[in-house]
């Protein structure tokens, strides 16, 4: 437990059943969902059961949402309810059910615990509907990010998705990409794996593709205030990817002239990554990654409640410089999430931190 301001960037709410969404649907979609027996569908997004060993963290055993926030001294948790309705093909039903998820989160969770901040969960495959959903909810300051899945039809930098980023930037919402797929796109760029083991391991590789896509397609140039958050991406791959981005750029700038300085400088302050899962085995390796990247400014504390990503009681791995911990716990999140950054109560606590030895 710590008195340090702590912002959890990746906190999962238990998935609501389809029947729980019925009050948030209009008459037509309620009739459709009931008549088609959809409440019996699990619509789970994860590729493993909820009670699989790696899905449950013993550190959270017996803790409900408020209890977990108490347990780790979380001041603010950016929460998400990853729901399988994002994978529906019917764009109208998908949009209706995504709206229902978002409304349920606001009423059942954001209203209940003031430490929670919400995600506007959208499907990238229908940018028009996604923008409409952002516009519908942006007036509620408790929503601090737009949430998309990592694996979709095209890499995230594609122009097709730009209306989403324009709306997010305009409303001061970060764009968060969470590990996960729609299960109709191979999780690997080289095709379909055979085993769940493969699917789980290669999730982080999608984020390397996404980072290069955001950069190369010019999203950071086009949307100069946009902030991007990777959730459950791991960050052990950052050094080599950043280096390859910089090295290759030197000889190929003419193709992508909107990259007007070394790419690692362009992504600094624009891309943030959640702490868990830490994909290094120990403190020495953590320190080596930090040394190679040259900064911890892009890391956001996360518990990944209720999933099992760390042993023991502390999500913060050993290996970071002590001086970097306050920023990893909270300061970086205030830069990643514009709406948190302009929250006077949080800013006051950061000021307090800065004058505390």
């Amino acid at each position: 437990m710590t008195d340090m301001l702590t912002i959890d960037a990746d906190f999962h709410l238990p998935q609501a059943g389809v029947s729980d969404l019925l009050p948030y649907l209009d008459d037509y979609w309620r009739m459709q969902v009931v008549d088609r027996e959809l409440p019996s569908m699990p619509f789970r997004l994860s590729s493993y059961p909820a009670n699989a060993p790696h899905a449950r963290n013993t550190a959270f055993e017996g803790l409900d949402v408020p209890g977990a926030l108490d347990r780790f001294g979380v001041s603010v948790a950016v929460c998400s309810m990853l729901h399988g309705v994002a994978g529906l093909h019917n764009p109208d039903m998908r949009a209706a059910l995504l709206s229902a998820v978002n409304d349920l989160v606001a009423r059942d969770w954001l209203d209940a615990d003031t430490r929670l901040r919400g995600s506007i969960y959208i499907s990238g495959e229908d940018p028009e509907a996604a923008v409409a959903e952002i516009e519908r909810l942006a007036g509620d300051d408790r929503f601090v990010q737009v949430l998309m899945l990592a694996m979709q039809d095209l890499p995230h930098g594609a122009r097709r998705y730009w209306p989403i980023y324009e709306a997010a930037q305009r409303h001061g919402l970060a764009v968060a990409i969470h590990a996960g797929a729609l299960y109709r796109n191979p999780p690997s760029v080289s095709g379909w794996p055979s085993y769940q083991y493969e699917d789980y391991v290669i999730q982080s590789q999608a984020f390397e593709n996404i980072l290069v896509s955001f950069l190369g397609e010019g999203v950071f140039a086009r949307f100069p205030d946009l902030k991007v958050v990777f959730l459950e991406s791991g960050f052990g791959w950052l050094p080599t990817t950043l280096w390859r981005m910089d090295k290759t750029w030197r000889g190929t700038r003419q193709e992508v002239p909107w990259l007007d300085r070394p790419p690692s400088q362009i992504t600094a302050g624009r891309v943030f990554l959640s702490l868990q899962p830490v994909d290094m085995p120990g403190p020495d390796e953590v320190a080596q990654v930090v040394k190679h990247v040259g900064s911890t400014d892009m890391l956001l504390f996360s518990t990944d409640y209720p999933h099992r990503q760390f042993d023991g009681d502390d999500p913060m791995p050993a290996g970071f410089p002590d001086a970097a911990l306050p920023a990893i716990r909270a300061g970086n999140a205030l830069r990643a999430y514009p709406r948190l950054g302009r929250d006077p109560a949080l800013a006051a606590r950061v000021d307090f931190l800065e004058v505390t030895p």
Partner: protein
Amino acid sequence: MTRHVLARVDDFTDREVRRIEAGGKPLCVAQVDGRFYALIDRCPHGGAPLSGGRLTGTVESDGPGHYRLCRRDEMLKCPWHGWEFDLATGQSWSDPKATRTRAFAPSTVEGGDLVKGPYVAETVPVEVDGNYVVVDLP
């Protein structure tokens, strides 16, 4: 400084890039719109002969999808890693803070009172009255 003759002016075609040794130094000599440029023919990045590269320009952009070709053929692109160097200054364009080639300032002068380099002296002795490309080297 010693003045060396590199080549006859009219021996160069427009936008030709050629390696010429003078005073024991390999030079990368280029002619663009009648103006001559010479660089030490060794990329300061990886050591490639720059004379194997292509003339290029700079590309400016107002954002994704916007391209503006500027300073056409005033840059030389290294054949190995694609780094670009300003012919006039030797300034690297890929990483302006890190790398600069040594640029010389060739000029076109009337021949006759020059210390000729190997090319002119050995193969074109009668061109003393013609226009030569020359360079001063220490």
